[in-house]
């Protein structure tokens, strides 16, 4: 399936509107009418359009601060019993405003890695690589390779966490604990190798603040992937697990992002367009089920692919500096573990003067709201997390 007509983000520059389309690395002018017609950004604009009416239909509140959810988020569920007819998701309770413009660039970087701490290295790499490109700063290829290694490690850790949450929901407690233990083991190694469990403080514009030994990281990831594969094989033959997640939160919309999108057959992965990954051949993992089972299958496939990418990146390291040609009207991007984040940047006096960032959660929020209809309320926490949604990354960058 193809998604290249999809507008996955838009922003205003001067008096004009511009949009970002999938499969393009440049932004393009866009008539305001076309943007107004997009119906998947409503929650971000505080327009809640999922209310349902009918005999015996009532509204049930789940959130904003409730056990079972990792972050603060409010669900307004329309139901006449257990089954969800419709849901509005209100993310604004924890809406953070993060000042990036006219800040010292290094402080902007520290803030960017705290936009989503769980995927911090992807976001810090997005900002570093964009600024390097805009300012014409070349980096040693060793830095490019090490950034890839950490981004792929972050993806694996994120996918393991989401799988653990799926297991918990399917009462596979032993598998869930084994996966959480595996994640912890990886976090400890990451801390030992890089100095921080969440990889904070490593990236630097033009390089890395803290260097590390790649072979230790790869060895650790190899062992983790081997251990993960054993758990995955056990889950594949568990009828209880498969029955619980099959057909749960089924959704196939081309505006969804990352594993959610690829689990419904869309072969779109920003790494295929990212100059960082240009020489690294890998297959995009897709599935066709569009449900939580398909998303689990994509996580499992991508964990394997990430390790292959890491090994290939080390083998194919170049002696020359890495400095891709800048494009006209370039929209920068990164494939975070939840999907592609795209960013527009303008500079003035060596500071960021204008920034727009479209994160995957901005689109997956609406995909989830549509997918969860017809499911039961107890499906919400784990189905939600299988979309890789982080409310933190809906914060506003000023």
């Amino acid at each position, binding site marked *: 399936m193809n998604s290249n007509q999809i507008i996955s983000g838009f922003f205003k520059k001067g008096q004009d509107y511009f949009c970002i389309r999938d499969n393009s690395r440049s932004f393009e002018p866009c008539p305001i009418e076309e943007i107004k017609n997009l119906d998947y950004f409503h929650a971000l604009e505080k327009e809640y359009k999922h209310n349902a009416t009918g005999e015996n239909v009532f509204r049930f509140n789940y959130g*904003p*601060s*409730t*056990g*079972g959810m*990792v*972050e*603060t988020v409010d669900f307004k569920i329309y139901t006449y019993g257990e089954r969800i007819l419709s849901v509005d998701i209100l993310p*604004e*309770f*924890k*809406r*953070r*405003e*993060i000042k990036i413009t006219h800040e*010292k660039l*290094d*402080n902007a970087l*520290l*803030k960017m890695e*705290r*936009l*989503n*701490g*769980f995927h*911090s290295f992807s976001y810090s790499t997005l900002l570093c690589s964009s600024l390097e490109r805009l300012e014409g700063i070349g980096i040693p290829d060793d830095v490019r390779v090490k950034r890839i290694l950490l981004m792929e490690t972050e993806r694996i850790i994120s996918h393991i*966490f989401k799988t653990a949450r799926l297991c918990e929901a399917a009462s596979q407690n*032993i*598998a869930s*604990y*084994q996966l*959480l*233990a595996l*994640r*912890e*083991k990886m*976090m*400890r190694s990451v*801390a*030992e190798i890089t*100095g*921080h*469990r*969440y990889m*904070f*403080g490593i990236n630097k514009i033009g390089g890395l*603040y*803290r260097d590390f030994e790649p072979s230790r990281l790869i060895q650790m990831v190899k062992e983790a992937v081997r251990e993960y594969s*054993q*758990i995955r094989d*056990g889950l594949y*033959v*568990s009828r209880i697990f498969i029955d619980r997640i099959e057909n749960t939160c089924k959704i196939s919309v081309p505006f969804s992002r990352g594993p959610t999108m690829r689990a419904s057959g869309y072969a779109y992965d920003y790494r295929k367009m990212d100059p960082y990954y240009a020489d690294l051949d890998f297959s995009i993992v897709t599935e066709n089920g569009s449900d939580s089972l398909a998303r689990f299958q994509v996580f499992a496939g991508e964990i394997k692919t990430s390790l292959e990418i890491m090994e290939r990146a080390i083998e194919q390291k170049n002696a020359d500096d890495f400095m891709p040609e800048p494009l006209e009207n370039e929209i920068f991007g990164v494939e975070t573990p939840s999907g592609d984040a795209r960013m527009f940047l303008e500079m003035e006096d060596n500071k960021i003067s204008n920034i727009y960032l479209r994160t995957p959660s901005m689109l997956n929020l609406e995909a989830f709201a549509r997918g969860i209809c017809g499911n039961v309320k107890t499906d919400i926490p784990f189905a939600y997390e299988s979309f890789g949604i*982080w409310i*933190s990354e809906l914060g506003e960058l000023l």
Partner: protein
Amino acid sequence: MKLWPINSLRKGILTTKFPMGKNETISPWSTLPVRRNDSEPYCPVNAINMGKVSLEKCISCGRCMESMEPSLRLDNFEKFREKPLLKRSFKIFPIDSGTCGACNTELFSIGNPYYDATRLGIFFVNTPKQADALAIMGVYGEEMESVIKKAVEVMAQPAVIILFGACALSGGIIGRGLRDLVDPDLIIGGCPPDPFVILNALEKVRGR
């Protein structure tokens, strides 16, 4: 399904003996930095004063690494409550006021098999009504003010109020902290706090 128990047995006991034994690891830069030489340290959030690092301000970034190094200590917390809690269990309700997500997942980490906080009687609960402690994390957000106040109100007294992570303590590098909103019994520093520091701090505030 015989596979799971066999796999678990193969892995052996993962759980730490802490606090009876020593912590096996620590996230270096989540601990408070200490001097490594006399050079003037740089800190993006002015957390260093006369060579001493403020646990409320430090964002664990390591930018001071030319002059400072991680202490690797577990004392990145302060308690303001002297009376021990005489309960055998300690139930925590987490509230996310405006986090990046890492404080949340790090707090939940103490439930994983490596830490197994339940062996110490520490549990997470789904509502503040059942909780002995509130762990509030993230920066101040207008919409969350009433949610936090309401949670404090409905808790059975004496309740322990915990401010968790640099954002909640000082705003970190992101925004405004929560010190003027609630009066904490315990503050835990770090961006995010390391799970061993969290366990240590929780045990100390219980008076154990």
